[in-house]
């Protein structure tokens, strides 16, 4: 039979199944292939907090969402157009997120009494009409997989495990993508297990052919390549990009990278990732606790390394005293905080932007640090370089905020040439003449004199030091001078950071001021609103302490400023107190990021429902 081909601009697909169904793998294979055919894309996994929830249960559902298209893609998509549900629990958990009329591909073989019960379905949703608003495509995924593998000697369990590749093959057919990238990947993965390789490849092909031959699929979709800037790309998650960014910073600065770290969700991948790169001289010290993670990094900074520590909210709390020590000793240090839902253990696998105050103020005494926030998974790479550069240039701790959404989300990163990366100059002091540990340069930065340098033996520490000289000093006036020096030094970082750019009109009715991971959703919302003729501008902050120097001016040029953030208004409070400007808030604290539609609706509401 003939099949129609429909061209679409963008599609959001969600693969969902049991933790053991290999959904993350299926999703990332689809992502690789999609990147390869030239679409822009953004992905987000959603996995349960429990490592091994009971099979078939609602809490064991694992999902992977991918948004791809021929235009500029900024988010993993509000609501899926297509859901692949490997079992009833996956259907139950995800059906509420779907677009009206969305396509649902279900593995009917898993809809037995036991699984329906585990998913807490009273009746079979495939039969009771509850899915009438969707385009349900029933596929006997398990059975078709087993049939394809009949003649192989693998165990039934091993055969059944291949069924995700049937679903993947089917999706490749549906979206007109080649299967050879995954075939090749399977080759490298299973080259020592020829029978498993054969099974997976066969099932992938079977899925693809099934789409081609069966009559239930009538339409294929074509998503044309996106017009991305020329260059070489790779797909990165935020955590991966942070790791790469700091290795690049180490190469750029010529000093070795030291990570002091303690495992914590959702930041552990940075430790895991960096621990692979020993041939880059990277030292990853998995410490006994969060405090040792940061304290060892401070020691490494003293000894001349590019020292970093990574954590999430609870760990940042544990590190605060030590960060104060790094402020006092004026050593370069980057603290990466992958924010998650808090307080306390909170929502460890979910996202939030509620550590901003902690990053800004969470220390005793006057202890200013530089605060940066990444805006997208790929930006995690570039902002890590910025963080390293500022820490070294200004001999200061820098807190780099990312979050769970950025950490696990992924998008293409355009790979810069080495020479295009920011320059990071390291000048260890070696000159004996005129050396004092707290002698400051024009930016009020003290010298970095590392152990091993003859003639510069000196002592630093947490006690207040005499200005310039660096000996212990309890003198009241000296203390005030030093407090002000440390503050002014951070203010001087403003010279280093770019002016804030306003997208859209440079003055007017409404400015959306955002920071961190909400960038993508706001960017997509702005584009949609622009297309419908709404007058609204947008500025996004990557540098939070200090703020870009033109921020005050920008704020003055707009009648209203709306700050959407995933907390109860922390950035809004900062802006109000810094610029005495009243701002409007838009807050969400649900462990999830904004949907594009939520931002659009809010802006339209603020504009008074006025269509421009």
């Amino acid at each position, binding site marked *: 039979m003939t099949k129609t081909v429909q061209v679409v601009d963008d599609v959001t697909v969600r693969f969902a199944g049991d933790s053991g169904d290999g959904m993350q793998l299926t999703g990332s294979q689809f992502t*690789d292939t999609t*990147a*390869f055919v*030239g679409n822009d894309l953004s992905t987000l996994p959603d996995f349960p907090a429990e490592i091994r929830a009971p099979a078939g249960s609602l809490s064991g559902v694992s999902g992977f969402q991918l948004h791809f298209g021929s235009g500029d893609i900024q988010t993993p998509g509000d609501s899926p157009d297509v859901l692949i549900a490997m079992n009833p629990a996956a259907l139950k958990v995800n059906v509420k997120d779907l677009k009206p009329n969305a396509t649902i591909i279900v593995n009917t073989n898993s809809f037995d009494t036991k699984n329906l019960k585990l998913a807490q379905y009273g009746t079979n949703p495939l039969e009771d009409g509850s899915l009438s608003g969707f385009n349900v495509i029933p596929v006997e995924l398990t059975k078709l997989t087993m049939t394809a593998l009949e003649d192989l000697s693998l165990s039934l369990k091993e055969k059944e495990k291949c069924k995700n590749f049937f679903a993947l093959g089917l999706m490749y057919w549906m979206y007109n993508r080649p299967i050879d990238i995954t075939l090749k990947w399977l080759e490298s993965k299973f080259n020592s297990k020829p029978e498993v390789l054969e099974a997976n490849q066969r099932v992938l092909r079977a899925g693809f052919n099934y789409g081609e031959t069966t009559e239930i699929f009538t339409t294929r979709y074509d998503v044309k390549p996106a017009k991305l*800037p*020329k*260059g*070489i*790309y*790779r*797909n990165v998650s935020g955590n991966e990009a942070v790791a*790469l960014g700091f*290795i*690049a910073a180490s*190469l750029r600065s010529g000093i*070795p990278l*030291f990570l002091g770290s303690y495992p914590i969700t959702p930041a552990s991948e940075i430790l895991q990732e960096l621990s692979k*790169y*020993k*041939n*880059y*001289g990277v*030292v990853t*010290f998995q*410490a*006994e606790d969060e*405090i*040792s993670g940061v*304290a*060892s*990094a*401070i*020691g*490494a*900074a*003293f*000894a*001349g*390394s590019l*020292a970093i520590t990574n954590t999430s909210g609870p760990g940042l709390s544990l590190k605060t*005293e*030590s960060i*104060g*020590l790094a402020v006092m000793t004026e050593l370069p240090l980057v603290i990466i905080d992958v924010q998650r839902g808090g307080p306390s253990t909170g929502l460890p696998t979910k996202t939030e932007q509620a550590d901003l105050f902690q990053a800004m103020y969470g220390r005793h005494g006057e202890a200013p640090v530089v605060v940066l926030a990444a805006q997208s998974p790929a930006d995690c790479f570039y902002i890590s370089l910025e963080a390293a550069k500022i820490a070294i240039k200004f001999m200061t701790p820098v807190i780099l905020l990312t979050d769970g959404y950025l950490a696990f989300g992924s998008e293409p990163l355009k*790979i810069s040439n*080495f020479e295009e990366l920011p320059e990071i100059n390291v000048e260890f002091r070696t000159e004996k003449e005129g050396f004092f540990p707290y002698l400051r340069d024009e930016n009020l930065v003290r010298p970095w004199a*590392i*152990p*091993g*340098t*003859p*003639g*510069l*033996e000196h*002592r*630093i*520490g*947490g*006690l207040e030091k005499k200005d310039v000289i660096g000996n*212990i000093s309890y003198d009241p006036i000296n203390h005030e001078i030093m407090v002000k020096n440390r503050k002014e030094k951070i203010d001087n970082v403003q010279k280093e950071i770019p002016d804030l750019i306003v997208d859209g009109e440079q003055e007017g009715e409404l400015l959306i001021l955002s920071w961190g991971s909400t960038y993508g959703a706001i960017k997509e919302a702005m584009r949609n609103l622009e297309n419908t003729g709404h007058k609204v501008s947008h500025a996004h902050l990557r540098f939070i302490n200090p703020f870009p120097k033109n921020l005050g001016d920008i704020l003055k040029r707009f009648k209203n400023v709306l700050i959407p953030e995933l907390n109860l208004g922390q950035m809004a409070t900062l802006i109000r107190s810094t610029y005495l400007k009243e701002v409007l808030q838009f807050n969400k604290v649900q462990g999830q990021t904004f949907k594009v539609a939520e931002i659009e609706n809010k802006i339209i509401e603020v504009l008074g429902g006025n269509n421009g």
Partner: protein
Amino acid sequence: MDNKINELVPEVKYTAKDFASDLDVKWCPGCGDYSILAQVQRTSPDFGEKRENMVWVSGIGCSSRFPYYMNTYGFHGIHGRAAAIATGVKLANPKLQVWVATGDGDMLSIGGNHFIHACRKNINMKILMFNNRIYGLTKGQYSPTSEKGMITKSSPYGTVDFPFNPIKLATGSGATFVARSLDRDPKHLQEVISKAAKHKGLAFIEVFQNCPIFNDGVYFPLTEKETKADNVIFLEHGKPLLFGANKDKGIKLDGLDPVIIDLNDGKHSVNDCWVHDEFDDNPTRVFLLARFTDISGFPTPIGVFRQFNKPTYDEEYVKQIAQIKEKKGVGTYEKLMLSNHTWEVN
């Protein structure tokens, strides 16, 4: 890892004075810390290390002011974190000789976790723990080594908790050099410090230190002339455990129980005594020795309880980096960025 360092052993011969910083030493008059500082400064010239390659790290407490008085690189940290900071220094540049000056509160209470893990990992650094069994800098509260029942500012009716035995703790945690000395026995202290300086791996020295202000005389039975001989037993490798003014009392092992014997009783001779083996592979005897301080009437062992060699964390780390560099080739930016699946947009 590649930080430049002067590899040569000093040609200039240092003296103790070269290790004194220009800062006035500000411990209370009579504090045992003065002696410890003096013995470290006296022995430092013989460590075979250039001054610029030595780093003293500390936490918080009276003892932790120590780095300020040493004319080496120094880092006065925050309470309890000395071992963690020192670990970072050592890993960042394994060629440095890293020392930690700390106290019983700093290292065994707030810093306990870092201490046991530094021992476990056998990080190549030396920890000099001044044990005065009291919190001095905060003015007289009991510490994790205060004797049960001790009356202090925070225990007016006596403590009800049991103290740590630091020798047992260090040994149990895997320290590869464990020793004890006395602030008021300069010669002995110098010997122990010099031995520790030569040890490769985590060296732990507990120094019994008098705090004349808040815990005066707690060690006098061990340090003063009249009583020392009967209360202290010097551990010397290959020598029998003897004590007393005339060395006529000894320790014999009866199964797993140490027993005090009288060499003049006609029944025992020096041949019955336990002979100390500093290099014993088995830590069991260290625990037996460490227990002496828990048994009333027993002399307190002083000296090196045990030293042995096993690979240090930092040398294993350096080795691993070298191996991976060998195997995968030294990393470059291009390899880094292009290692994973990439695609080109034209």
